[in-house]
């Protein structure tokens, strides 16, 4: 009961979203009405034509006198051609309207609304929802909604009208033959739906196996060196063969079941055809019920027309289920709770004092991470965050930048409570250089100028020079206009990191967040990165996620993070004296050395 209710609501909401195109939908409905009317008329004209042919031939071939009204026959031919042409033109016109309007003003509009929504969703939502899922809502689910709106006229207006029209017309022509058509044609659809359902089961298993096969193939090829080094070719081949065998069995059954739909539908349609021929023939031969050869022809045509709308209505209903599921996913995202913005305060003064006051935080309420954390960072000081990989070092960044909000306590920047100002104002005093260097697809110039689009060309070049990347950029064939994209291979990971440092330089903000690069950087570049980072930190308050010994030693405050919580806090000397977790990490490095 409850489910039906929400489904109804979803359908209503889709209808509401089609409001901007309602005028067009009405026009489309009107056009398809014309198309339906014209297509219903044609069997009638064909009936007249066939009767005219037969009525002439029947006496004529027996040598009796017969007249053929050429003028009337010609008129009817022209009329028939006009009706056909009109019907096709109306179909084309409707197709053009629906394609343009639905794609431009319905699906495209929803996609843009979703993209707009992301601006106001918390980082938490984006972290917790796999990217692929959001993208699939935006492409696949919206496209399903569009298809349904698109075929709405087709199924509901023309489908239902056509069906009703045919039934009325054939019952008027001859109720007995009409009864045969109305019983036999839907039977074929019922049968085909039954079989299609069965075959779908096998196709689902084919798709599943195919997914496994893809993953196995990908795994084998990406790990080709390991496969070869450990002689695993045979094992992978055997696993692949087994999956192929499963797929073959399911595919064969599914394809077979799907393939028998056609013949069975053809048989029932043929039976209707034969029934019309026999019953109609007997009536016509005995001149019963005013049956003529033309009426038989008209019946055959109506019977053939009958299946089309039935099929599209049935399809429309099965599509509806899918559409409701898709729309619910889309609307769920559009309904997600948005971030609220406070505006009591304006941006921090930019001195660089940061204070954590009794901060409590957890990603999951069941697992408290930070309890009562207090840190006082004066302008120009350096805070290092250290700890094992996956230990939760980035939590501090998340809180500082307000990607996540604290559960208790507060954070002050230059004496101002960060929760009383808009996020963008808070962020305007921070620069970030993260380990997974994020560059967007665009020119190198635009990437450096990302934080300050108003910067002059000279300023951009100066930032690149200070990040020791200017010379490299100029050595590229297109210089600063080199486009960076997924296929970019001539820029290494280290160079990308230098570009993000240049970006931070140009933004020139009082507080810095640095995540040191650890892998995929060659020695020379690593030295460069280290040097430029040190340079960048001068006279700025900085938070460094540290991977190197040298960074830790001279920090003003070291936060030691393990399993997500801050376990120790202090200067290098204090922490060593404590002989706790920090001392263990630090000594472990020296154990490797000695």
């Amino acid at each position, binding site marked *: 009961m409850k489910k039906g209710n929400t489904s109804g609501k979803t359908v209503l909401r889709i209808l509401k979203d089609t409001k901007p195109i309602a005028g067009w939908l009405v026009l489309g409905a009107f056009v398809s009405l014309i198309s339906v009317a014209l297509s219903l008329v044609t069997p009638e004209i064909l009936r007249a034509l066939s009767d005219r*042919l037969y009525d002439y031939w029947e006496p004529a071939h027996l040598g009796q006198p017969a007249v053929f009204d050429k003028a009337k026959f010609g008129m009817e031919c022209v009329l028939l051609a006009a009706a056909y042409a009109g019907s096709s033109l109306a179909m084309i016109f409707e197709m053009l309207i629906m*394609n343009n309007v639905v794609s431009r003003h319905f699906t495209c509009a929803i996609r843009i609304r979703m993209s707009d929504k992301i601006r106001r969703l918390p980082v938490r939502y984006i972290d917790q929802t796999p990217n692929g899922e959001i993208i699939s809502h935006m492409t696949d689910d919206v496209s399903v909604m569009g298809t349904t709106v698109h075929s709405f006229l087709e199924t509901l207006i023309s489908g239902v009208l056509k069906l009703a029209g045919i039934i009325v017309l054939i019952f008027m022509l001859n109720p007995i033959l009409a009864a045969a058509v109305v019983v036999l044609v839907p039977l074929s659809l019922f049968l085909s739906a039954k079989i299609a359902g069965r075959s779908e089961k096998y196709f689902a298993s084919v798709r599943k196996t195919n997914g496994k096969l893809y993953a196995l193939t990908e795994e084998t090829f990406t790990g080709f060196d390991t496969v070869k080094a450990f002689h695993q070719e045979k094992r992978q081949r055997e696993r692949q063969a087994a999956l192929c065998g499963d797929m073959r069995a399911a595919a064969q059954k599914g394809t077979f079941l799907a393939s028998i739909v056609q013949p069975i539908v053809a048989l029932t349609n043929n039976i209707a055809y034969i029934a019309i021929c026999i019953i109609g023939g007997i009536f016509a031969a005995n001149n019963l019920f005013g049956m003529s050869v033309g009426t038989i022809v008209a019946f055959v045509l109506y019977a053939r027309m009958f299946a089309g709308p039935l099929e599209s209505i049935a399809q429309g209903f099965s599509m509806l289920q899918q559409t409701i599921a898709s729309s619910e996913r889309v609307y769920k995202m559009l309904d997600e709770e948005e971030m609220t913005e406070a505006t009591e305060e304006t941006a921090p003064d930019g001195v660089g004092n940061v204070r954590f006051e009794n901060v409590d935080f957890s990603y999951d309420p069941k697992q408290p991470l930070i309890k009562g954390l207090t840190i006082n960072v004066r302008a120009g000081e350096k805070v290092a965050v250290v700890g094992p990989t996956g230990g939760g070092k980035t939590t501090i*960044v998340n809180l500082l930048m307000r990607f996540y909000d604290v559960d208790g306590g507060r954070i002050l920047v230059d004496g101002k409570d960060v929760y009383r100002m808009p996020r963008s104002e808070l962020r305007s005093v921070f620069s*970030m250089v993260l380990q997974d260097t994020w560059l967007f697809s665009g020119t190198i110039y635009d990437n450096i100028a990302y934080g300050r689009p108003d910067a002059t060309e000279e300023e951009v070049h100066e930032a690149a020079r200070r990040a020791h990347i200017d010379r490299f950029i100029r050595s590229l064939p297109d210089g600063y206009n080199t486009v960076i994209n997924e296929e970019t291979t001539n820029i290494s990971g280290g160079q990308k990191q230098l570009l993000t440092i240049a970006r931070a330089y140009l933004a020139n903000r009082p507080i810095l967040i640095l995540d040191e690069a650890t892998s995929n950087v060659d020695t020379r570049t690593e030295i460069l990165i280290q040097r430029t980072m040190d340079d960048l930190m001068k006279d700025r308050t900085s938070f460094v996620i540290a991977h190197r010994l040298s960074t830790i030693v001279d920090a003003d405050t070291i936060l030691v993070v393990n399993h997500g919580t801050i376990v120790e806090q202090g200067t290098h000397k204090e922490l060593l004296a404590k002989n706790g977790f920090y001392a263990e990490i630090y000594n472990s490095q020296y154990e490797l050395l000695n």
Partner: protein
Amino acid sequence: MPCFSAANERFRELNRRLLVFCRAGPYTEAMKKIFPFLKPYKKQLILTGALCLLFTLGGAFLPYLMSRIVDDGIAAGNMGVILKLGALMLGLAVISMLGAIWMGAVNARVSAGFSHDLTRSIFDKASALDFENFSKIGTSGLLTRSTHDVSTISGASSMFVNVVVVVPILLAGGVAFAFLSDRVLALILLASMPVAFLILFPIVRHLDGLWKLSDEYIDEQNRLMRERLSGVRVIRAFDKEAHEHGRIAHATEEMAKYIIRANVRAGYVNPLCMLALNLATVVMLAVGANRLQDPGLMNAGLTAGGIIATVQYVALILNGVMMLSWTFVFLPHLKVCVNRVTEVLDLPDEPAEAGDGTIIGGDLVLENVGFAYPGSELKTVSGVNMTVKAGQTAALIGGTGSGKSTILKLLLDFYAPTEGSISLGGRSYEEIGRGGVRENISAALQKGMVFEGTLLDNVRMGDPDADDNAVKNVLDIAQMTEFAESHEEGLAYRLAQSGANISGGQKQRISIARTILKPASVYVFDDSFSALDFLTESKLRKALNRYLAGKTQIIITQRAATAMRCDVIFVIEQGSIVGTGTHAELMKTCEVYREIVRSQLGGDAV
């Protein structure tokens, strides 16, 4: 007559394509390579043809019988004829259905079998390639070929059967039956085929391209979205959400344009097909009526029922023409897929030489080794001399792109050196053979690859004969006991494909466990500790050194802290060894090494 010349132009283009299809090289060349895969199903394909003939003719007979009902039954008022003909029709309809179902069964078997054979062959071939040929096509290239391309070809195989078997029967059957009632009407029907094709083909011709184009725009929108979601922190840090939204909104609008273009073109197919069919009907009725008035023809057997029946063959013919047009649309794409697949199938296998299982031991010596990747003139490594004595632990240190991984590939005989030689225990690699070399070198590779299967399976790849205790022992050394014990399945814990359910550090440690389980002469660790923190690395290395005491080890790394304690350190830069010795020696003699140490460990470690 501009209209006429345009039609002429089209006709010539069509002719050209037909010629290409029927006889000229590329298509038949490509298809020839696929035919062997259809060969095992030769009998079934012939059966398909016969069955298709049966059911097409059965269906085509119905309108003819209907005309007989009109002419001999209704006109003559003969009930017996009507019932007899009706029963005959019913019988034909049932036979036709049975024939079609049988054909469906045969076809399902052929297409599933064909797809199965092709999928297996290309995978078998790919996994038997040597590295030279493997990297010629590349990981993603091979993936496309063995998934997308193969399924396209399999899907097309049924289409192929349609074009070769079903369409000719449909077309010939329709025309033949039309000839039964009237010669001229049959000729009109025959003439309508190329006309319908000329109308249809230009519409559907560019559809494939348009679909591909709109797919590209969809990909572009998705790419921008992925970029935005992955960079959400940076974007928000710089307050650029509005800017990013603008980019995506623009891409979405562009995408809509191309989707509309493709859909509109496809949308023309149905109404225009209907129109062609219907207008042909009108023409045939008009011509039929005209001919009916010729007493000579009527005496020769032209009847009203015959004309009505002939008109019904138009649908049959149009169906055939549509199938043909669609085939032509997909042919170019199919050709590309076939060529890509056969490119792989034509590559030679890596010669399968199994080793004899002996552990050779002894010193590992690289003498003046140089190597350039196939097709590249530039040497990736050159003049490399390294001697690792039996039982020593050696380190090979250098930055990314310095040639470290290439040396590992040479050590595993993935490639043979282009200059110089490698020997183990005094025997050259050529003498030992590829299989033997891989039995003697056990390597944990950079990525820490794991495979779908249990934890036990993954570790036991190193030594299929190892028992649970041996596996538990190496897992303990790899610091993975905690992981194994945290899951109630223990060693039977299932790892997802490519280890999607565990972290990078866990993958590395499983791969280390696998490596040390394998009995071998030399153990190589390629950047195998990079995803581990200092504490875990320290514990692991200590346990490892105890376990492998007396065994030869080579550690490939970028981290000075990892290399420092080794018996001998090789410093590699730009493909050459620029320093050999212990930490203390290198600090004195090797500038590159000093630089590395200073940058990573700071001044105090020196």
